[in-house]
């Protein structure tokens, strides 16, 4: 690496460059280590994308497997299941993003309005708790709460909202809302952290001015707090839109069952099923490539939108 980047690139005389290299040799050695590590673990898998265009056979390796062009992609898009898992991934990603964002903002604003530091601190500490629990535990809790004898059905029957306990995990219509609720339950307190710090950064003088103009609590939230955190909201939304397709694996895998698989399976589950369990590495890779490609395009679009809005760019 050092060889190619001689004087011309770094814009300094040759002897000065050599002096710098001598001084910085420790840094350069470590850089080489991190470069090699990154090539091996982060960039080498990208070479594996070639498998998506091959009839990959482990015994032949990438070098000698037969090239089949876009055949695997054609197979994917003529598979109704793949179309459905794209729909599921997108739908759950968008629903989760909207639900968690709204709840986090609402929670941050309301928490900020609690009078008394102690009370605020206690609520906030409790709000972080679910973030630290694994999806295994969270889905266990959901199974308990939503089972036939669970607390939710008990409340529903007690208030005569239903005559018979609902089997929440057996009906397709409940699956997306359950996933959204679980995400909201788990991440509201955590996601609120960034909004809260944005709220604290708002100039207190603005609130004083609003108070002098006779603004009540509602008005202050509407005209001071929300405009004050608008740019944070926009930038986080944009950042997360790029990740919409990455949002679906653990909970769908753990909560899904045969009865709801039409709405529960996501792209990652499809890749797992075909790529790992059925060992069709090429099909699994192709399905993954499509996901990555869409994600990258979404991120680039979002970055552009952020720029247009005059927001800080992401990268």
């Amino acid at each position: 690496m050092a060889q190619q980047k001689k004087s011309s690139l770094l814009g300094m005389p040759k002897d000065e460059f050599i002096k710098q290299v001598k001084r910085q040799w420790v840094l350069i050695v470590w850089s080489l280590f991190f470069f090699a590590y990154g090539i091996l673990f982060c960039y080498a898998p990208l070479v594996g994308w070639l498998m998506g265009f091959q009839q990959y056979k482990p015994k032949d390796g990438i070098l000698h497997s037969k090239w089949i062009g876009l055949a695997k992609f054609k197979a994917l898009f003529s598979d109704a299941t793949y179309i459905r898992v794209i729909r599921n991934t997108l739908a759950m990603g968008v629903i989760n993003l909207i639900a968690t964002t709204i709840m986090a903002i609402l929670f941050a604003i309301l928490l900020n309005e609690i009078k008394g530091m102690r009370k605020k601190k206690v609520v906030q500490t409790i709000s972080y708790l679910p973030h630290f629990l694994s999806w295994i535990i969270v889905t266990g809790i959901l199974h308990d709460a939503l089972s036939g004898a669970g607390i939710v059905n008990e409340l529903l029957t007690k208030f005569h909202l239903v005559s018979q306990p609902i089997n929440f995990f057996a009906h397709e219509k409940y699956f997306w809302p359950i996933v959204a609720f679980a995400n909201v339950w788990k991440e509201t307190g955590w996601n609120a952290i960034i909004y809260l710090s944005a709220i604290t950064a708002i100039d207190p003088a603005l609130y004083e001015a609003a108070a002098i103009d006779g603004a009540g609590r509602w008005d202050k939230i509407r005209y001071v707090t929300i405009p004050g955190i608008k740019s944070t909201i926009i930038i986080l939304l944009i950042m997360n839109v790029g990740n919409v397709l990455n949002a679906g694996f653990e909970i769908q895998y753990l909560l899904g069952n045969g009865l709801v698989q039409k709405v529960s399976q996501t792209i990652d589950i499809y890749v797992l099923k075909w790529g790992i369990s059925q060992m069709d590495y090429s099909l699994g890779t192709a399905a993954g490539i499509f996901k990555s490609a869409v994600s990258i395009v979404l991120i680039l679009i979002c970055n552009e939108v952020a720029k247009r809005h005059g927001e800080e760019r992401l990268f």
Partner: protein
Amino acid sequence: MSNTINKKKKLSKADIAFYTFNSIFMTLFVVVTLYPVLNTLAISFNDGLDALRGGIYLLPRKFSVKNYITVFNKDDLLVGAYISVARTVVGTALSLVACAILAFIVSRKNFLFAKPLSLFWVITMYVNGGMIPVFLLYKGLHLTNSFWVYVIPGMVSAFNMLVIRTYMNGIPNSFEESAQLDGAGYTTIFLNIISPLCKPVYATVALFVAVYQWNSWFDVMLYNRMSDKLTTLQYELMKLLASVTSQSTSAQSMKNSTSSITPTSIRAAASIVTMLPIICVYPFLQQYFVSGLTLGGVKE
């Protein structure tokens, strides 16, 4: 901060409505957050068969520690706990050291390759090979069916590196310069000057990594399913959950069995054991992850 402002003003009707709404919202929020955890705790301390009758809320009805005794005598759970602790300790240590060194390198202002190396890692946040190529790579490197797959591949995280780098960038250059005048090399500067100042951000990143390691189960399923001795607590918990779900229909038949231990009650106890370490630690580290998240928000 804004609380002090409206002290002297009398509350209007709309404000009273607001505070009432807020109190109700927060109470509901706290109840919905805490209830499932406390309920699991109650079931874990309740006699297993008795719990099947339902109706246990916040307190055990028929107190028993049998579930915990069973959990602590289950070999696969014990092995799982051992592996979970090992990967959390080793993984956190390795990852913290690696991210700190990388962040140190790319935050040196006059380092020749700081920018390209930084970009090289930021790209990895957005582009990755995907499940299958990664799986085949690890297989090729003989990382599957081994403990090291938990700690080596994920050692460097670009996000955590950025968090540390942002913090290091905030340290005045004069520290480094005066140390260099005294003849200190980069190793000394890293170990004796910069790292002591970075303790808060190191704590943040260590917490992020430790929680990730402790809660991981998917890599266990993907890479080490075949090795009984390498599965983690979370993975064993998942197997318990699966057995509970499949047996819930036969709950009736369970009632007739002689054992007072049921899959449900064991799972509750195992869940509590799994959550406990994190629940005990996180309240004391709040300032660290709050500042870490805020630093992470400051990007490139």
